[in-house]
């Protein structure tokens, strides 16, 4: 009789460790993805389920691998700009800027103030776009479709602004090494400003639908908690890191593009759970709006490209057609690419998803010898195999949604 255990309903209900072995049943292997509504792309999760609980999880990447880093070795610096659009395709402008800044750091080139201001607006608009998608899709993952529709209405307005600025709604390819492709259109700043006015009401609507919603809080508070130490050891960056309570924002800590001139707060979380990650994104949108307003309020005059960098930035079209020197300059740029000094450089920028880094090895000339990309989504995803076990299958959706990754950047 000794090996018989007595069960009461309470024991079974609380899944106590003593009774657990007796209740164990067969485990089920479940393959979530590569094509699955919760994975937001082509992520595949190999899971072991015990009932509804995940016991093991192994993410499988690489379904979107395009070999971007190798491609970079076969083209000039400017030709690679369109490829950066396809990294984090929800914030292509921010990628463009980060790449251009990395190459300019290699060339030790400073762009004029007006160009910096344009780039700051681009980065922050991209951040709003990406975070709106993050919050909206997160809402959708939790079952609230309406939030998704609200934020996408705003993103549609953003895309119209992007189209006006760059000529493309989605793949913007706006920056060039040493400047941007063209100056801002007439009245664009005013339209950006009026867009900013509309952002806060939408955020309030989302806030009313989610933030204090009991069902939403039940599903997110305490779910997918990442401790500070874990977050650092897995190299998590961006809002996901700040949600854990670590104050790291490259815009504040290693200011670039003159971010030190602007007054903004960096939201910091407490618990590092899914709920905090949602709050981070919502708050960062507000901060971005405030940065954009500051930039617009004091928009510098001047040139939108570095004029003195004759071997890097192509001169205006009118000059090419009229002046011999500029014609030669343009010809050299098109055939050989922007001329870079020898050297190695690493630059990372605070992108919506985290720190997007470019490591460039140059042997001189117009083509990088080696270009390595540090995709924030890739590092943010690396914690999955540790984060998911112990959660319910349904929690997968909110955890993946709260990590807000983009497979284009993971697989490169």
């Amino acid at each position, binding site marked *: 009789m000794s090996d018989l255990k007595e069960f009461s309903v309470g024991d079974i209900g609380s899944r106590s460790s003593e009774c657990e072995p007796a209740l164990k049943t067969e485990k089920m292997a479940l393959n979530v993805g590569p094509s699955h509504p919760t994975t937001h792309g082509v992520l595949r999760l190999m899971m072991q389920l015990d009932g*509804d609980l995940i016991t093991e999880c192994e993410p499988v990447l690489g379904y979107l691998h395009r070999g971007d880093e190798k491609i970079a070795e076969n083209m000039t610096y400017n030709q690679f700009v369109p490829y950066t659009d396809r990294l984090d395709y929800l914030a292509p402008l921010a990628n463009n800027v980060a790449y251009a800044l990395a190459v300019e750091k290699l060339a030790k080139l400073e762009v004029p103030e007006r160009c910096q201001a344009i780039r700051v607006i681009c980065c922050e608009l991209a951040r709003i776009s990406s975070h709106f998608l993050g919050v909206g899709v997160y809402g959708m993952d*939790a*079952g609230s479709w*309406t939030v998704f529709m609200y934020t996408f209405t705003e993103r549609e307005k953003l895309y119209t602004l992007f189209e006006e600025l760059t000529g493309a709604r989605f793949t913007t390819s706006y920056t060039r090494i040493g400047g941007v492709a063209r100056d801002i259109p007439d009245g664009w700043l005013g339209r950006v400003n009026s867009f900013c006015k509309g952002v806060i009401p939408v955020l309030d609507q989302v806030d009313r639908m989610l933030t204090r919603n009991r*069902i939403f809080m039940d599903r997110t508070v305490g779910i997918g908690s990442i401790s500070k130490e874990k977050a650092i050891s897995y190299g998590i960056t961006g809002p996901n890191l700040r949600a854990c309570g670590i104050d790291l924002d490259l815009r504040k800590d290693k200011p670039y593009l003159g971010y030190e001139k602007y007054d903004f707060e960096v939201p910091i979380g407490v618990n590092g759970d899914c709920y905090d990650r949602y709050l981070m994104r919502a708050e960062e949108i507000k901060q971005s709006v405030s940065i954009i307003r500051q930039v617009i309020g004091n928009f510098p005059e001047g040139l939108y490209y570095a004029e003195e960098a004759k071997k890097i930035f192509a001169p205006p079209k009118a000059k090419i057609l009229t002046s011999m020197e500029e014609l030669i300059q343009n010809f050299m740029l098109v055939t050989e690419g922007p001329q870079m000094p020898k050297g190695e450089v690493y630059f990372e920028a605070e992108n919506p998803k985290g720190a997007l880094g470019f490591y460039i090895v140059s042997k001189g000339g117009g083509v990088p010898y080696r270009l390595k990309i540090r995709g924030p989504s890739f590092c943010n995803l690396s914690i999955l195999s540790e984060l998911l076990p112990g959660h319910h*299958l349904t929690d997968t*959706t909110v955890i993946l949604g709260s990590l807000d990754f983009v497979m284009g950047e993971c697989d490169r």
Partner: protein
Amino acid sequence: MDFLDYIIPILYALGMMVVFMTMCAYAVLAERKICSLIQGRVGPNRAKIPIISQIPIIGNILTRLGIFHPAADGLKFLFKEEITPKHVRLTYYYLAPIIALAPALTTMVVLPFGRYIDTNGLVQPVVLADIDVGILFILAVSSLGVYGIVLAGWASNSKYPFLGSIRSTAQMISYELAMGLSILPVFLWAAAPGSDYGLSLFGVVQSQKTLWLILWQPISALIFLVAIFAETNRLPFDMAESETDLVGGFHTEYGAFKFGMFFVAEYAHIIMGSALFVLLFLGGWHFLPGISDPWPAGFFGVICSTLWFLLKIFLMIFFFIWMRWSMPRFRYDHVMHLGWKILLPLAIVNFIFYIFVIALIDKISY
């Protein structure tokens, strides 16, 4: 005359079936239109059918309202390629959608939807079969609907449907209890001493002539409302088909018209749930609480009471849809928690409370 006696009930039944199925179809349209209203979109406004759509102004307006979309939706399901995966258990695979739809359609038989005054001057319900255990019949038959989902999940022989059907089964069983307990006080009240209605739905409606039960028994109404949301698998509770983690839940492997039947069954359940809630708590076809019915005598009065009843059902359907598009989804274990640890004890306490109150009232008045 014998022959007619057989034919007329069948014609009635067919007539009700047609009305009910049309309501299901337009409930789908209502869902799409109301959802787009909530989300700031336009919603379906393209489908056209020959002749009617070409009438100058009216045709245009009807098209904009999406009036013809249910036809397009239905035809789409009919004409899609009929795909049957190789790995399914065929008999049950085909049986499941039928079992899901049949109970919802069967329950409408005992649903009173209006009232008339017979030759003796008594008020009688307009109903296909006036049985005196109406609510028992509805509870018994509508819970058979879960077999459709269980069978679908099991017969599909695939993991997502399996998980979906397990969740759905657990959920339906746990909410059935709270649902049954929540309506006991209602019948305790309706079957007052001296009345001979027992468990019939007509009796409940008649007892609400002056006071709707939602005002007198709000807790019962609340529990019942939550339970029908859970029973119909609607959004705060749609574990069974939570499309973000289980792809489509129990109907992942179903396509074409088989899926269409599940789809119709869901809306049939909503309409049934709404109708039941209106009958039990919102006074059925009675006008407003405290105001006596203004329905005229004769045939016109029957029409009026039926239309008023339908209007209340539409409001309930609107409520269902409104909820769906403004709520996130529960997690499976939270649903269980809510059902067993909150709703069930609450229903029991509520029941005991009304036992005493009603006994007291009986003591005082007799």
